[in-house]
């Protein structure tokens, strides 16, 4: 999965460019207006084709997240269009540029209904034999405890399934009971389900671990 955040790219700018970037910060920091999604069989050049259309219309790209699942490419882009840009034209031009039966949607941006509750991030993993409905079972348990998935991937091959999720749990969640519920649900389906604090994985995989203790 790739993620581009234009604000983060300022680290790589030369000094004059940095001032140009600062001048543009007002635009970058202003609210997004639209969400663009693209779903299409994967091939080379999709990002290039999409962003060429955006650049041609002077559309600000504020954030992008892309992934490929089983040969299908999907991307979600957060955009800022000015009033003169014709939404329908942009979507049609992207579909035309991709020309492979792509599904393109461009919808007005709406802020999330509510800010996430303060809490902690956990990693859920489930491994074992493929079981119908297990993703739904896990998701319902998490939802019932007020948890929110911030990232989720699931892959099933040759009868084996692997689910990995980042989950934000609100402060005060009875963690032990939640873990027991997940373990039981997993065991019934032939899976080993673990819910462990996100910092464990940061500690064991990232060199810059100590900053998480400030």
């Amino acid at each position, binding site marked *: *999965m790739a*993620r581009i955040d234009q604000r983060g790219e300022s680290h790589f700018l030369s000094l004059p460019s940095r001032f140009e970037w600062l001048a543009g910060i007002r635009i970058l920091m202003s609210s997004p207006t639209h969400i663009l999604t693209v779903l299409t069989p994967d091939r080379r050049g999709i990002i290039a084709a999409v962003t060429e259309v955006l650049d041609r219309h002077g559309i600000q790209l504020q954030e992008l997240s892309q992934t490929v699942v089983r040969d299908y490419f999907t991307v979600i882009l957060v955009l800022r269009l000015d009033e003169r840009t014709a939404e329908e034209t942009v979507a049609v031009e992207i579909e035309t540029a991709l020309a492979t039966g792509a599904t393109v949607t461009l919808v007005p941006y709406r802020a999330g209904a509510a800010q996430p509750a303060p809490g902690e991030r956990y*990693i859920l*993993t489930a*491994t074992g034999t493929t079981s119908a409905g297990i993703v739904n079972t896990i998701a319902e348990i998490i939802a019932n405890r007020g948890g929110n998935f911030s*990232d989720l*991937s699931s892959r099933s091959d040759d009868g084996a399934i*692997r689910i*990995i999720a*980042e989950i934000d749990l609100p402060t005060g969640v009875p*963690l*032990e009971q939640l*873990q027991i519920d997940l373990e039981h649900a997993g065991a019934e389906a032939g899976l*080993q389900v*673990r*819910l*462990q*604090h*996100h*910092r*464990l*994985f*940061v*500690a*064991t*995989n*990232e060199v810059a*671990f100590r900053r998480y*203790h400030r």
Partner: protein
Amino acid sequence: MIRNEAILDTIRMFQDEKLDVRTVTLGLNLDDCSSPVLKHLLDKIHARIRISAAHLVQATREIERTFGIPVTNKRIAVSPIATVAAGHGPDGLVRVARCLDDAAAEVGVDLIGGYSATVEKGMTTTEGALIASLPEALSVTKRVCSAVSVASSRAGINMDAVLRTGHTIRAIADADEANNGFACAKLVVFSNMPEDNPFMAGATHGSGEADAVINIGVSGPGVVQRALQRLIEGADGDLATGEDRLTLVDIAEEIKLTAFRITRVGELIGRELAKKLGVQFGIVDLSLAPTPQVGDSIGEILQTMGIARVGAPGSTAAIAMLNDAVKKGGAFASSSVGGLSGAFIPVMEDATLARAAEEGSLTLDKLEAMTSVCSVGLDMVAIPGDTPGETIAAIIADEMAIGVMNHKTTATRIIPVPGKRAGERVSFGGLFGESVILSVHDAGGSDRFVGFAGRIPAPLHSLRN
């Protein structure tokens, strides 16, 4: 965002490779518990432990849940009792040992260390009394562990203490004959004793430490062994030749990387637990400490590295490389690495080492050679029950000399098994394991040497100032 593969690598360490936090050890300073009145001393020690460690087990359990990491042992290490109980005789000191045992049971910890004396240069009356009390103190208590520091690179080797300790070990074994001398497994004799070691039986809360501190001991021989196995099997499949072939440098790098990850687990748990308990975080001790379980063995690592029978020529070089790579990985992972940090080779606690001893490839002499380059010494070695105290002292002296001359910690944890001879077996069960009783050749051949007693002076390179 953490890559899925990295997440699964971490999960595998716990799920399949037996990684655990081997011990969470709460160090407690008891210096201000001192009192010439025995009852006051006992009351203060008991209260200090009961209050300071009241939440240790529960807090550790919560940390285990949060991070999904098993913590095998919860322990306490206290200030050297020979100092805390200065002025009391052997009987009073045994009462202190019982008090420690009771307090440890009350707060739910597995073991309590610090029934200790530091005598590398000279011995106070109380330190002598403590050593004299060991046979009773260690055989009538369940959880109390002791460490006696008899040597250091700065002071040399106190051979008076070594000789006395040799005889004491025999006396401990005889006092605990009903348990095959198991009480000896609760005594470690040190050179260059660390003051922040979380592993038992040698844990003591040193004089340079804060009032209370959390030290962590992480293990993970299984993780290292499996990582090397994957690396080597993968390389065999590649059929790489020339500069692309797998070499010992690659193996050392893999050990370093694995040690890095294991150490990070320890530091994370230590910091989180210290925060929860409101005490200082001390050190993380990355010591590859085996257990008798298959897949949790230093011997298996050496076999994976190509030493078919542990003890064969090359074993010392292999464990030297392993020990060094572990330290390098740990040092990069954390600035709080301390304690012993290396690869332990406790014969009874490692099924592969025990088998090598039984097959005759791993002898006492080869073990001694290996301890010159690894952590920590002749550990959990069963010897014949009739081995004279002088000979035990000579074995200790040899091990201490390795430590003193090389500026490293070395130690012995020797068990003369009453009524048993070389080649017979002894089992202590559980994590303490079992093994054949190793032969001590030429027993008695160094009586005159150790009988001189006195002190082996500090080596020339101790004069650094």
